[in-house]
């Protein structure tokens, strides 16, 4: 079992002939993901690595292969178009890896996808992986291990760090989801938490937040009101100065709002075990699983 991506995933890769797209399509195939199609306009009819058919449009790909999930590796200026197209073609999940998508583009993409009930993960995210089933995105497969911990994070390498800590101590993962570091994203913490709560194969959840916005605070409220499974949390950016964007477009303390301290407090108040260091994840989880 898993959330969002898993054994039923039939993946179409948008931008499969690009530098990033071709590299990661190869990685996903190697991991065993059902990569059923690729899309690059003008290259319809060709094949990727002699096995994955390439189409001119996502609509063609979906109608020919029954793809139900799309992953996007196109450059930032084409990313909004790619999300519109995937949703229009009827896939139920779109994972947008691309970094640097203008926020104003997202204000139009998000309602479009919502009207079509398309779930979006990202943009500017590492994607999702359900170890042993499917990898959609760029999370390194070799650091993951099958198991029962759900991981959700706004970050990339920090997530890998924590997955790595889990795997090497035998705590495998049901699904790891990187929701992305941008201010406007498709799937937020609550969406992931409620999916993990409903997933029979997930026993506990690790939530990795950071400064900026109030998504973690809302998630904490959700945990205290609607979750029975134990949750362990981390917030990056305790030492970040206010008003400065810390790499991620969404990681910014506005005025006095969105600080790590306020998020950690709301975690604690909601009964979420708060990690002080990434390496705290293992002892805190072992206490609770």
């Amino acid at each position: 079992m898993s959330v969002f991506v898993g054994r039923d995933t039939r993946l179409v890769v948008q931008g499969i002939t690009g530098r990033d797209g071709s590299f990661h399509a190869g990685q996903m195939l190697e991991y065993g993901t059902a990569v059923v199609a690729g899309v690059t306009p003008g290259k319809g009819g060709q094949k990727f690595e002699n096995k994955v058919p390439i189409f001119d449009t996502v609509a063609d790909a979906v109608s020919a292969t029954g793809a139900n999930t799309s992953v996007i590796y196109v450059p930032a200026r084409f990313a909004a178009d790619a999300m519109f197209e995937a949703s229009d073609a009827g896939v139920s999940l779109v994972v947008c890896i691309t970094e640097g998508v203008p926020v104003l583009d997202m204000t139009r993409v998000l309602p479009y996808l919502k009207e079509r009930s398309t779930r979006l993960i990202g943009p500017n995210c590492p994607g999702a992986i359900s170890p042993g089933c499917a990898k959609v995105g760029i999370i390194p497969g070799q650091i993951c291990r099958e198991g029962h911990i759900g991981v959700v994070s706004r970050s990339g390498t920090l997530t890998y760090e924590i997955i790595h800590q889990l795997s090497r101590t035998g705590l495998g993962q049901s699904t790891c989801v990187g929701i992305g570091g941008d201010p406007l994203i498709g799937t937020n913490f609550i969406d992931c938490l409620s999916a993990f709560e409903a997933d029979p194969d997930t026993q506990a959840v690790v939530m990795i937040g950071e400064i900026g916005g109030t998504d973690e605070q809302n998630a904490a409220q959700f945990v205290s009101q609607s979750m029975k499974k134990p949750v362990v949390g981390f917030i990056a950016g305790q030492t970040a100065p206010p008003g400065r964007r810390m790499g991620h477009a969404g990681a910014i303390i506005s005025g006095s709002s969105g600080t790590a301290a306020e998020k950690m407090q709301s975690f604690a108040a909601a009964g979420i075990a708060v990690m002080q260091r990434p390496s705290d994840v293992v002892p805190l989880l072992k206490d609770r699983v």
Partner: protein
Amino acid sequence: MNLHEYQARGLLKAAGIPVPDAEVAERPEEAEIIAKRLRGPVVIKAQVHAGGRGKAGGVKIAQDPGEAREKARQILGMQIKGLTVGKVLVAPAAEIASESYVGIVIDRSSQRPVLMVSPAGGVDIEEVAAKTPEKIFRLPIDPRFGLLSHQAMGLAFKLYRDIDQVRQAATIMQRLYHAFLDAGASLAEINPLVTTPKGEVAALDAKIVVDDNELDRRPGIAALRDSSADDASETKAREAGLSFIKLTGNVGCCVNGAGLAMATMDLVKYYGGDPANFLDIGGSSNPQKVVVALGIIASDPNVKSILFNIFGGITRCDDVAKGIVAATRQLKLVRPLVIRLTGTNEQLAMDILQQNGFTAGTDMDEAVKQAVKLAQEAA
């Protein structure tokens, strides 16, 4: 990217918003000439990317051209929040009947641009929000339909009773929304929006922050960047495609990934140290980026030790190792280096480093502890 006040005023003016004439001066004599042209008293305003200019002495009134030159001389070259003032705006000191606030900002919860207005203008809107939140009116704008006339009118009625002023303000709000979209902004505000004794509504001060991700497709806006107004090391980092923010501590940090970079800084603090910077070398593992990154960190005299924390995913550890070797050859580092590497091509990296006389670990906590210790010893 922050625009200067004078740049933001220019964009609003181009969008059809009434903005009093004003000009920029880089030398006191220019300020005098502008003041002559404008006639009457003027206000001299420092053009820096920092709030609270007034409190810092960066805004002064001058009654005549001579005084304008004098006040400009005082302000030019001044330091405000660590930034040097290189330009001043010389604007007419308008008679003002009322001051309001109008701003548009991307709101993360509604996932829309939100129009905010307040009759309590002329002061920091965060202060208004904290002390008298009932004086702020907010409207999420549906980007599918834009800012509709009746919505702008409804908010304008919160600012004015006179129907002419209401209509002027509503038009200004709609034009501000267009300017916001055209600039690819994440924030556009007019503070204060004033009424003159004659009853006209005009924008007296303007602020626009542009979404960096919009700059590629907006060369006209990108050209407004004033690198001289930013910290030099940050400019250098940006030009190399690095994400860098200077802080005040003494442990230099070089990390791949923004989240891990923040967590590394936090861990430095956790172990009793103080980070000197935020630095994310990004997902690619171009050794040249590592060279530039190390150069920027090493140029900070406060830095007493330098910590590498790399989790190899797409970033290949061996590439980073090569970059470290190359950088240390070019830069002749005098600070101790602590290196932590794990993940993709970890062993290759370890071999490269060892061959070049470096040691490296794989544990994040251990590396951070050591870097903190080295910095404390050197201090």
